[in-house]
């Protein structure tokens, strides 16, 4: 008999956790990931009004993990919105690794830095993560770094208030001068370093110096100046209004998501400025002090979160390693290359048009509505993902020992992204070539043409271009590109032709084809029976074999 005291008791929290974990790990009939992100509503009692209200939450976890760590975050998105956003995320292992890292660090107010190749989807997932928290169409505040980035774009700068266009141009010209910029930095430094001044006195000092600067350049010394905040203080104090617009409050703003991209390209002075947002215990700073405004502090709202992203150093020629101080001050996650499995999964999603965007009516230029034939899409996905991978590898190994490889003799890099596949898939809908003999879609030629347009025409290295053209031809039509299809080894061209022929048939033709195949099968069966009959009558065939043949005959019947 079971001792009732030994039966493990599960609290409602444990049961809820198990249910959420089950939903996070949910898979479809073919093993496809359905979970990863779960939406739930909860009733809560407002402590102020004592009224019951509904709060919305999302749970994010990596469904590929046996025991995923699940993060719960409050959301402004509806159930329908979360479902729609989920459908737009290709459920690759790498996507969930990134989303999980975003959710965990966001919850704990820790800045996150992800270093990963261009194809991995950092920008896209930052956008989706923002949508998961705020609703469809809401984008993070994005800032892209380059070698040209100026600290003032990130932090703050003084700009003159001018009335006429002519005056504006005059000022812009003056402010762009290198010596003006140096002087502006010196003014901020003087305001910061002069001891014993109140905030007002510091601001007054800045104004005096700005006026002197303008006068020295022959511009009106009476010009009024205003401080323009850059991306960092703005994100710290942003308020998202109910109509979707933004306003700013340096003290009471809620804060928003700031995505700083390609941080590896930033110059050291930009990195120094970014280090200001590091706070205690690995968290984001609660406030920053800007000397440009006389040392006034900007408070970080509770929803301020900074996400940095960068590509691996080997993808650039002139790119620095991530600054060690920045790397120490953030949660630093290095991602590897997209796996071949993930690459194929992405290709399958694009070419079977699972991510939406199917036309309602057959568009002009469309011979076969390819988006309604996932069986063809899956075969295309195999070809394109293999080609994409081959080119990606070739771009990385070429370059004659240069850091990062790439095409020989060029400065610019062309790392491939999943967008390249997406473009081919979308163009395939209405940019199709007709086979002049059959009148049907010539899928092989269409694919060759689109791959050329989107992948190969960008290449400046003619040798690489020719090699990749040959590789594509071999993949589609050559002996080594043959694969097993319905029990036969066929080239992809042949497979495409068969699939297109089937998909292009009318209902009547399809019935006729089925009838014809049935007849052929019937004929084949009769032929086998005849052969068996004649073998059974042959006195030279041993009894054991005849017994086996009898069994086969029975099975045929």
């Amino acid at each position, binding site marked *: 008999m079971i001792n009732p005291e030994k039966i493990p008791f599960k609290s409602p929290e444990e049961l809820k956790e198990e249910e959420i974990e089950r939903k996070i790990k949910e898979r479809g009939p073919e093993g496809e990931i359905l979970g990863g992100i779960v939406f739930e509503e909860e009733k809560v009692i407002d402590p102020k009004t004592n009224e019951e209200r509904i709060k919305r939450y999302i749970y994010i976890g990596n469904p590929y993990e046996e025991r995923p760590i699940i993060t719960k975050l409050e959301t402004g998105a509806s159930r329908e919105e979360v479902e729609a956003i989920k459908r737009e995320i290709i459920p690759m292992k790498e996507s969930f690794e990134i989303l999980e890292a975003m959710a965990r660090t966001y919850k704990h107010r820790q800045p996150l830095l992800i270093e990963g190749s261009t194809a991995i989807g950092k920008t896209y997932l930052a956008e989706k993560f923002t949508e998961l928290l705020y609703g469809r169409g809401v984008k993070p505040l994005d800032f892209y770094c380059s070698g040209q980035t100026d600290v003032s774009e990130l932090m703050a700068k003084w700009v003159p208030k001018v009335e006429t266009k002519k005056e504006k141009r005059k000022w812009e010209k003056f402010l762009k001068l290198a010596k003006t910029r140096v002087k502006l930095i010196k003014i901020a430094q003087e305001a910061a370093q002069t001891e014993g001044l109140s905030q007002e006195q510091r601001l007054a000092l800045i104004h005096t110096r700005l006026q002197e600067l303008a006068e020295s350049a022959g511009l009106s010394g009476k010009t009024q100046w205003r401080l323009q905040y*850059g991306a960092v203080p703005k994100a710290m104090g942003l308020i998202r209004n109910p109509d979707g617009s*933004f306003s700013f409050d340096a003290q009471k703003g809620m804060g928003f998501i700031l995505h700083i991209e390609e941080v590896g390209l930033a110059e050291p002075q930009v990195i120094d400025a970014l280090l200001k947002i590091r706070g205690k215990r690995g968290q984001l700073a609660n406030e920053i002090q800007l000397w440009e405004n006389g040392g006034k502090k900007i408070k970080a709202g509770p929803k301020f979160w900074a996400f940095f992203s960068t590509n691996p150093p080997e993808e650039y020629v002139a790119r620095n390693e991530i600054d060690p101080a920045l790397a120490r001050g953030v949660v630093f996650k290095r991602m590897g290359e997209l796996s071949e499995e993930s690459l194929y999964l992405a290709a399958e999603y694009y070419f079977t048009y699972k991510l*939406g965007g199917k036309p309602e009516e057959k568009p002009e230029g469309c011979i076969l509505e390819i988006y309604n034939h996932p069986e063809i899409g899956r075969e295309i996905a195999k070809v394109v993902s293999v080609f994409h991978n081959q080119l990606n590898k070739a771009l990385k190994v070429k370059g004659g020992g240069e850091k990062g490889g790439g095409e020989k003799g060029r*400065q610019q890099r062309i790392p491939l992204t999943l967008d390249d596949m*997406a473009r081919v898939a979308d163009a395939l809908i209405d*940019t199709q070539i007709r086979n002049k003999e059959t009148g049907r879609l010539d899928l092989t030629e269409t694919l060759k043409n689109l791959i050329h347009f*989107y992948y190969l025409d*960008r290449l*400046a290295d003619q040798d690489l271009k020719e090699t990749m053209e040959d590789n594509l031809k071999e993949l589609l039509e050559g002996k080594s590109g043959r694969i097993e299809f319905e029990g036969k080894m066929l080239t992809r061209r042949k497979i495409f032709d068969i699939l297109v022929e089937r998909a292009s048939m009318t209902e009547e033709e399809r019935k006729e084809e089925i009838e014809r195949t049935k007849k052929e099968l019937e004929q084949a069966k009769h032929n086998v029976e005849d052969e068996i009959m004649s073998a059974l009558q042959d006195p030279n065939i041993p009894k054991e074999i005849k017994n086996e043949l009898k069994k086969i005959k029975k099975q045929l019947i």
Partner: protein
Amino acid sequence: MKNMDKEKLSMFIHLLQKVQKQPNQTFDLGLIVEELGSQIEVEEVFEEIKKIVDTERIVYDEKIFDEDVIDKIVDIFRKNKWVFLEIKKDIKSPLLNQLKHLANHNCLQLIDYQGKDIFEMKMPENSRLIVFAERDFIENKISYPHFYRLFGPTLSLK
């Protein structure tokens, strides 16, 4: 322009008009590259594009500030026209930021612009942006290493 180039240009415009990348349904920015030794004049290309779509030209050179280029792009988009942006100097940070916004989100996002803390403007359905530059210039003068990544279709003119 040779007939073959005209055909390629027409295909290029068609792809920019029609192709919306999954899953965000975003349109691409286009790049026209003038190869070394090409006899084609930029005016010729611009005029040819104008025959297909309503387009305005901006020349990004030493005489113009990024802020002015951004103002012009906003104006052209407000008129639902296409932008033909000829690049003749290295792209500075303000313009690069907006090109990246357009490429990633089909949207301009500016801080403290036109009286708004955050100004966002979606690229109109009937507008696109095409960048024109010489191959040699792209390879040797553009310091941003992922310039080509900003664009979808690339048309190479020899």
